[in-house]
């Protein structure tokens, strides 16, 4: 019988620690598929964040480096500038990238570093137990916004893709969602594109993935998908915000 679907070679068969219904597994898979597709697993370094995905080194078949909280874009800069022949990606959550690591992501983007950033936005700090993130929606209850995120005291959720797209240094900036097969296929295409840009020395590529965190949202996996579709996508619209022509 012909095999039509298999685990990407760039990911191993460890049982992932992610919770039921969490979309990190899909995001990992898409990155691994891109590494397979371009045959770059053997010359790629992934930079892990602090957060749930810090354990990504347990799953990927490429070299992985752990970075301090929020610093993966700086760490990736150090790698790429000293080994431009290697492929470098950072994989970061919203607390890591949009809060503590805001300076690092903005400046790596602004310098046009030739790296790929995968940004998993699930509107909450996952690993620490569901605290408010810079992407937490207005009114969203978290363990540190028990009465709901209040714009007067907590400000507004940050739209990272839109913000980075304004910088001249970025080459490819997109937001995708991991909610249904059609969107996952679009996300796959975006991740491939992001690595392709790096392989062609086009500079900074950024893929924001709207994701779920059923555990910290206090929802079942299916309820979480519904929330992503009904609440996240209207505030964080999907689409390509920046795409430089490949020369």
């Amino acid at each position, binding site marked *: 019988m012909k095999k039509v679907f298999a685990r990407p070679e760039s990911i191993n068969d460890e049982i992932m620690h992610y919770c039921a219904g969490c979309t990190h597994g899909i995001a990992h898979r898409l990155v691994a598929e891109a590494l397979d597709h371009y045959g770059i697993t053997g*010359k790629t370094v992934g930079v892990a964040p602090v957060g749930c995905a810090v354990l990504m080194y347990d799953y990927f078949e490429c070299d*992985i480096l752990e970075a*301090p909280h929020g*610093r993966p874009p700086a760490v990736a800069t150090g790698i790429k500038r000293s080994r431009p022949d290697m492929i470098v990606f950072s994989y970061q959550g919203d607390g890591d990238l949009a809060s503590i690591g805001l300076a690092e992501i903005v400046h790596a983007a602004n310098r046009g570093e030739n790296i790929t950033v995968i940004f998993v936005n699930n509107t909450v700090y996952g690993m620490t137990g569901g605290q408010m993130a810079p992407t937490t929606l207005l009114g969203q209850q978290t363990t540190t916004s028990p009465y709901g995120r209040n714009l007067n005291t907590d400000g507004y959720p940050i739209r990272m893709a839109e913000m980075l797209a304004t910088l001249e240094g970025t080459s490819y900036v997109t937001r995708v969602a991991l909610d249904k097969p059609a969107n996952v296929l679009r996300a796959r295409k975006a991740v491939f594109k992001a690595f392709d840009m790096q392989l062609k020395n086009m500079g900074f590529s950024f893929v924001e993935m709207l994701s779920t965190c059923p555990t910290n949202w206090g929802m079942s996996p299916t309820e979480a998908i519904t929330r992503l579709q009904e609440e996240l996508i209207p505030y964080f619209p999907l689409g390509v915000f920046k795409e430089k022509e490949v020369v």
Partner: protein
Amino acid sequence: MSDNTRILVKGNDALAMGAIKAGCKHYFGYPITPQNEVPEFMSRELPKIGGEFVQAESELAAINMVLGASAVGIRSMTSSSSPGISLMQEGLSYMAGQELPGVVINVVRCGPGLGGIAASQGDYFQAVKGGGHGDYHLIVLAPSSVQEMYDHTMLAFELSDKYRNPAMVLADAVLGQMQEPIVEREQAPEPPPKMWALDGADGRPARHLKSLLLKEGELEAHNMLLQEKYREIEKHEVRFDEYRIEDAELVVAAFGTAARIAKTAVGQARKEGMKVGLFRPVTVYPYPKKRLAGISERVKDFLVVEMNTGQMLEDVKLNVAGDAQVSFYGRPGGGIPTPNEVLKRIRKYYPGQAESNVQSPLWQTQGRQSPKLENKRGT
């Protein structure tokens, strides 16, 4: 250039020159006084030799760029001054935990806080006791001349790679800003291949460099391994310098710029017949504990001189024999002890000694260049 031609060099430039001679082609840094000559030098020179200079958005980013370059096996460095070094403590703790080499230069200014830009030794505790969170040590070298600024930077790269541990050159604003003649060294040999580096999993299993160790007992075991490494460093890498210790009745202990000042005072004291010597730790971590303990078996009086309110003082007290007396003279906040001030403290051990002052060379009192240095200019 390996002949003995002497060239006149500013301390901060010597740091950068030493780094390049050590094979460092990757520099990441952020501007801060009084070390700006280092990034300026690197931004000018590294592109000429196929290297990379990145002006980072902050010292946080700079140290993490060093972390990244180091993880893929490339010699790299950053430099800063006290407030910037405080921001780097996070990265240094991670690098120590992940056992990553890398060189950090601290041209110390005075604090706390924004403080001032004058020289100080107020960062001694931070440098030698760890600085960031967790149980770890940096290898810390304390230069006392522009030649040592150059040599210690080269040595820092060598030791850092040898022990897979970040190393720091603990300089100060005086050393960074002054000019002295130096002799350039031979280009350092390439470091041995780094079998741990993340240079691509082609043909081998994937490698990970991390400091998160959650399995029961794993982190404790890792800490014990780090401690074993520090014991090895303490066993093999202690360096110090001595001046007229042999028959000394009083030993002045000082490092860096303070040691130069103390040496002038010790020289004058000797002229006046006081049996005084100078003990100068060159490595402040590992600290020359055994030698200091050895000296204190014979010598019972120690005077510690620092440009702070007594930091290395604690290491001296910890390591001298129980019956030794340790006194202290120091000035914080950019105050720099003069040789006469030190001599005054030395004289307290010799009651009845006639008062006299250290004779300043004419060029110092009249604000002129040293004739010696003038002769060397342009050679």
